């Protein structure tokens, strides 16, 4: 059997999972350079998928009161306030915004500049916003380790939990190299982004992408999204935004590329993403070999205990 690869680049992930003649692999390209942190994606996802409330807490660290992806948060807008030189993110051809009075919001580092302006000389402050989501990995550890078959690969190449099969063993939770999937405590089962499997089935785009007002979240065929992302990052580099880089688009990375990948303006860990994730099952064969050797050692220990002296 040629299917069920555990690591490495894989062109047709649905065919590898056993689908005959699957539709193209679908995914997200989240361009964080045009995210405005409005959280419409978080709301749209909750509404469409009927995701429960995730705690009405103030984190006190930033405008991000959601905190992290979880069983009850399938889109999470990260909000980073940095003391770093601002980068010209918008197209240079855009007209400069009309002069307007500056309001001091009490933000750190704000002197006499509009923190979101791009034509000021503010060099002390930068806001990064990024809508995080399940990566729908080419080699998904959550799916590999699921003992019940509750997690499965859809015909669109995405990874979905079947809630009626999951028995809440929780193995997928520590398996995910991105810390995405989690258990809903009061329910016992695990939940995560489905890439709106139900909407995909009827030819609709996922709720978050539909609701995104700036097209920071772009949905489409993964191959096309990868090309679009390459063009976008070259465009930004040409504009002098050297910090722009793609994250998760490389089919040769540790998870065989993400079905949902990103354009970031800083190192991944700044956004709470692992810099070099590797699917744990890449080492599975080696792990089983060591387990086998250890089992033989145990048997040998037992035999040795009975050899030699009698009593």
């Amino acid at each position, binding site marked *: 059997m040629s299917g*069920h690869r*555990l690591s490495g680049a894989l062109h047709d992930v649905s065919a590898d999972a056993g689908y005959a003649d699957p539709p193209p692999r679908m995914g997200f390209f989240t361009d964080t350079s045009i995210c405005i942190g409005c959280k419409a994606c978080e709301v749209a996802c909750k509404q469409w998928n009927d995701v429960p409330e995730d705690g009405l807490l103030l984190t006190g*660290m*930033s405008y991000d009161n959601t905190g992290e992806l979880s069983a009850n948060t399938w889109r999470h807008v990260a909000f*980073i306030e940095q003391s770093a*030189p601002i980068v010209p993110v918008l197209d240079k051809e855009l007209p400069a915004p009309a002069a307007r009075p500056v309001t001091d919001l009490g933000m750190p580092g704000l002197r006499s500049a509009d923190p979101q302006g791009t034509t000021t000389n503010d060099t002390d402050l930068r806001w990064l916003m990024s809508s995080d989501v399940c990566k729908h990995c080419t080699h998904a550890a959550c799916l*590999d*380790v*699921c*003992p*019940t*078959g*509750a997690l499965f690969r859809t015909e669109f190449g995405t990874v979905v939990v079947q809630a009626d*099969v*999951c*028995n*809440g*063993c*929780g*193995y997928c*939770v*520590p*398996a*995910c*190299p*991105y*810390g995405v999937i*989690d*258990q809903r405590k009061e*329910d016992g*089962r*695990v939940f995560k982004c489905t890439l709106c499997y139900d909407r995909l089935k009827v030819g609709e785009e996922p709720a978050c992408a539909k609701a995104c007002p700036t097209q920071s979240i772009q949905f489409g065929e993964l191959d096309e999204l990868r090309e679009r992302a390459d063009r976008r990052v070259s465009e930004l580099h040409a504009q002098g935004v050297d910090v722009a880089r793609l994250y998760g688009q490389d089919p040769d990375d540790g998870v065989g590329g993400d079905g949902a990948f990103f354009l970031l303006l800083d*190192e991944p*860990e*700044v*956004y*709470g993403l*692992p*810099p*070099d*994730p590797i699917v*744990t099952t890449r*080492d*599975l064969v*080696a*792990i*089983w070999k*060591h*387990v086998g*050797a*250890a089992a033989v*050692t*145990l*048997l040998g*220990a*037992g035999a040795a*205990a*009975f050899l030699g002296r*009698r*009593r």
Partner: protein
Amino acid sequence: MREQRLVPDAEPSSYYGKPILKTPTWKQPDVPLYLFLGGAAGASSVLAEGAALSGRPALQRAARFVAAGGAGLGSVALVHDLGRPERFLNMLRVFKPTSPLSVGSWILAPFASLASLALASDLTGVAPRVGRAAGVGAAALGPPLATYTAALLCNTAIPAWHEGYREMPFLFAGSGTSAAGGLAMIATPVDQAGPARRMAVIGAAVELVASERIQQRLGMLAEPYQQGRPGFFMRTARALTIGGVAGSVVGGRSRAVSVVAGCAYAAGSVLTRFGVFQAGLASAKDPKYVVVPQRERMRERTLTR
């Protein structure tokens, strides 16, 4: 002009210090206790067959008790840990070699049945041939039962577990073997307990060497095994295991010393499992254990390219 920093930040950057990975939802004491029970039961099934072959009925009975009891209690702990315990049978819905938990379920279920059958036959004297055959079956499944749990922990993204996958199976094999030997020493008259003592000593040696190696090889990821509560557990486990060895070598012919040494082995094995389990949790909670080794890996890759 902003000042240029000559040395990198002591702390790697992170998203407000929040963890990158999710902390395992596996409950305590359920899962670490199961690691101990499964290890002790698996190794005991081997001890029981050896005792049966060499004609040591008291040792055989004690080991069969631990094999069946450990598997039974361990199964209860595992089911209790599930978010949906009523769906525990879904564990046997498919067989997936990529999921150590699936493989383990397919080892544990027949092992528990066979070990119980062997014990029941031994206790009642009914169907001795069937009982022995069941015991042989359990002894064949015992070593995998005692070691697959290492794959269970290591086949995750948890840094302190995954990176230790070369040593963890041997650590667990040793820990299970010393526990099986120790528990049999508690319940067996000294004149029949010789193999149990020897098994415990061999297991302890394997456990101590594997534990030492894991902590030497992992570099920064050894910290969770050395610091805080898991560090205390690992150090105490080591002391108890060494104490067990000393007791069984020096005082193996004394029933009282054997009982104390057996308890030390078992307690050492329990603490090793809790130490390893909690070290993994600690490595998941601090993003530096994800970021720093991954950055190092990336740096090495660019250097060798």
